[in-house]
């Protein structure tokens, strides 16, 4: 008998960790209120990132991470007791799961009494006490919670505690206490319809009676456990139940049954082993799979890296090429611009050169004819002097003087033109009295006009004052008057007057009753170029240099120059010059 009991005790002992194991493996889906409340809190304190993470990991049962984040949360020294308590709780529970019971107890004891789930703390503490074999303490904690309804928390159930307490007392042979707790445990397990634990409960209760040799009470419970075990798929439960039954039958010396149970036991034991093997194989397979996957992941990562590098390389190359392209285009454009400028300059230079050449030929031609005329005239003069034909002398001398005057004017214009081009000459814009200037310039032409019977009127208002350079204004007037006389018919008139139509300007008009100029010639004359207009009408005399000078000088004096003309009626040459602002 003694042997039997010890045997049974052994099996029971064996069965305890097994059963406990299966209990703790139970999925944790029924936390309900606790999880709800914690989630609710985490939503409320989304800013407490560490708390949110800690609770997340807690519910995922990743204990180490839970420990880390809860510690972080605590280190923030938040004044929120609710959060702190939860963190302590998470830590205590995590330590317990990691089987560091001392640390677990330490953390759990820090929780304030106001903690909403203080009962949970008791459960866990009780559980720890059990693990450490301190039955009385466990009982004490149990006392706190025994009146509370069903508790279940991460695999720790009230019934579980009851069951374990019962087992502990069974070991210490305090059977009556053990019986009480086991009965309570069975009662709550029956309520929960927790088959597996119920099998263990029945088995354990049966063992108590069996130990006390109360076979009559024990056997029905063993049978109950055996019957229940048939309903489950758990091979261990089946195995333990049938083993117990075989031992019981053997002790009752019903070997036939014992054998039957024993066979069953072996069958289940094999199943358990195969299951374990299967599990092992599965685990290994999984590991292999995981390794393969990891390798794959590594390869993919490497590939990704390579791709990223390649892509970056392409991007940089593209950028560099773009910049190069931009620079090239920029320089190319610059070059084109410079080329354009150079071409324009070259054209200008060519134009100027042509002008100069033309000017040269025209001027030298004119001078040559003038001098030639003078030569001829002088020869005549000499003849007449020799012949003492004094009456002719006067006329000849006058011809000479007019030839010389013409040549002088040409040379003067040439000099002024050269000075204007080289910008060497003195140029000072100052207030000028138009009337006086006109008088002074016209003075030189009076004899000529008298000779040609042209009436001259200076109708410029004495009050008209303009801002201009005196010498250039005189040059303009000389040329315009010269032209007017040159192209006037006998008995014509020349009038000079100002018009005040243009705001800020005086229009100085030199009007003649001469042959006039056609529009095409006017356009030619006024062209914005340094080119000398072609010598058109053969009857016309002059180089065109005079008008060019007038245009350039007017421009230099910040004025304008224009021509109005009607063929055979007359011409108006108009220079607009800025008015002098009258001060007082």
């Amino acid at each position, binding site marked *: 008998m003694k042997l039997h009991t010890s045997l049974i005790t052994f099996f029971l002992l064996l069965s305890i960790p097994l059963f406990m194991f299966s209990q703790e493996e139970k999925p944790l889906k029924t936390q309900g209120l606790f999880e709800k409340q914690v989630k609710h809190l985490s939503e409320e304190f989304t800013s407490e990132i560490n708390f949110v993470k800690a609770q997340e990991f807690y519910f995922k049962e990743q204990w180490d991470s839970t420990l880390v984040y809860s510690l972080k949360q605590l280190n923030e020294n938040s004044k929120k007791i609710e959060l702190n308590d939860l963190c302590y709780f998470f830590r205590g529970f995590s330590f317990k799961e990691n089987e560091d019971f001392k640390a677990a107890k330490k953390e759990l004891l820090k929780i304030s009494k106001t903690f909403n789930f203080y009962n949970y703390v008791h459960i866990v503490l009780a559980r720890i006490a059990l693990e450490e074999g301190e039955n009385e303490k466990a009982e004490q904690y149990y006392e706190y919670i025994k009146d509370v309804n069903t508790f279940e928390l991460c695999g720790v159930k009230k019934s579980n505690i009851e069951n374990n307490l019962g087992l502990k007392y069974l070991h210490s042979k305090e059977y009556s206490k053990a019986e009480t707790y086991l009965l309570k445990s069975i009662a709550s397990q029956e309520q929960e319809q927790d088959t597996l634990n119920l099998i263990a409960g029945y088995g354990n209760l049966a063992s108590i009676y069996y130990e006390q040799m109360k076979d009559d009470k024990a056997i029905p419970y063993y049978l109950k456990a055996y019957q229940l075990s048939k309903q489950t798929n758990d091979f261990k439960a089946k195995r333990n139940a049938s083993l117990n039954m075989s031992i019981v039958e053997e002790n009752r010396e019903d070997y036939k049954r014992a054998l039957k149970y024993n066979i069953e036991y072996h069958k289940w034991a094999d199943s358990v082993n195969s299951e374990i093997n299967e599990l092992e194989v599965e685990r290994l397979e999984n590991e292999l799979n995981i390794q393969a996957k990891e390798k794959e992941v590594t390869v993919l990562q490497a590939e990704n890296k390579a791709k990223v590098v390649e892509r970056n390389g392409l991007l940089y190359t593209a950028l560099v090429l773009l910049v190069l392209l931009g620079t090239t285009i920029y320089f190319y454009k610059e070059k084109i611009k410079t080329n354009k400028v150079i071409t324009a300059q070259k054209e200008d230079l060519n134009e100027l050169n042509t002008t100069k050449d033309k000017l040269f030929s025209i001027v030298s031609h004119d001078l040559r004819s003038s001098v030639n005329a003078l030569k001829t005239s002088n020869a005549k003069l000499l003849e007449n002097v020799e012949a003492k034909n004094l009456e002719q002398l006067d006329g000849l001398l006058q011809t000479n003087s007019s030839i010389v005057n013409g040549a002088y004017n040409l040379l003067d214009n040439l000099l002024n033109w050269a*000075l204007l081009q080289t910008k*060497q*000459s*003195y*140029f*000072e814009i100052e207030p000028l*009295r138009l009337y*006086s200037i006109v*008088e*002074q310039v016209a*003075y*030189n032409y009076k004899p000529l006009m008298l000779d040609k019977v042209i009436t001259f009127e200076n109708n410029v208002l*004495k009050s008209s004052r303009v801002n201009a350079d005196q*010498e250039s204004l*005189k040059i303009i007037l000389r040329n315009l008057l010269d032209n007017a006389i040159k192209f006037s018919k006998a008995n014509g008139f020349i009038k000079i007057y100002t018009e005040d139509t243009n705001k800020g300007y005086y229009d100085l008009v030199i009007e003649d009753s001469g042959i006039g100029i056609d529009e095409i010639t006017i356009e030619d004359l006024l062209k914005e170029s340094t080119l000398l207009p072609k010598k058109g009408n053969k009857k016309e005399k002059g180089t065109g240099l005079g008008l060019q000078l007038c245009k350039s000088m007017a421009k230099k004096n910040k004025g304008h120059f224009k021509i109005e003309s009607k063929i055979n009626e007359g011409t108006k040459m108009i220079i607009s010059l800025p008015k002098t602002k009258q001060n007082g």
Partner: protein
Amino acid sequence: MDNVNILIVEDTTEESDALIKVLKANNYNIVGVATSFKKALELFYNNPVDLVVIDIFLNGSPDGISFAETISISPNASKPFVFLTSSTDRKIFERAKLTQPFSFLMKPFNELEILYALEMAFEKFYAQQDVFFNEEENTIISEEHLFIKKGKSLKKVLISDIIYIEVEEKYCNIITEKEKFVILISLTKVLTLLDNTIFSKTHRNFIVNTEKIIEIIPSDNLILLSGNHKATLSDKYKGLLKQIRTLK
């Protein structure tokens, strides 16, 4: 009225001759022709000169400018002048321009141009712009002379010769010991430009040279002046009496 005295500084005889001819024809008095810087200074300081006509280039160097510079820095002797030049060289002009007041004439020039240039020089020098050109005025007042435009030319009158001035609308009758003539000038200008320690207003229409006063008869409101001239002394200006006593 006297002719205006002109000193010519010109090294080319033909040109100076032509100039002299034109100026004489317009009643200017030529005090001399200098052909060098030294001669010019000599003539300038030893003759009563009213204006100098200066050729910038004397024997190839711009001594004309040096001469102008010399006479313009001696304030008491300084006189108006006109530069003559045939070159528009900018550098020369920049230098000549520093001799303020600057007036110049380009060669070749005609009669009108030289006469105009002389008038401009007077206007600029005595800072009385637009006098000879304005139809309402014809007289410039310097410290010693009145320069009056008569026809194309200028005449001068020694201010100390004036006995009294009678204002008649826009005109002023100038009465000197020898003659009597009319000038165009505004009364205010006369009063501001004449030396008011010598000339005093005695009546709305009379300005009297106090140095020419022989006798004042306040009861008759009469002032007897030298040369048997008489001027009116109105009550408003009797303060003059005090002034004259203290002066004498």
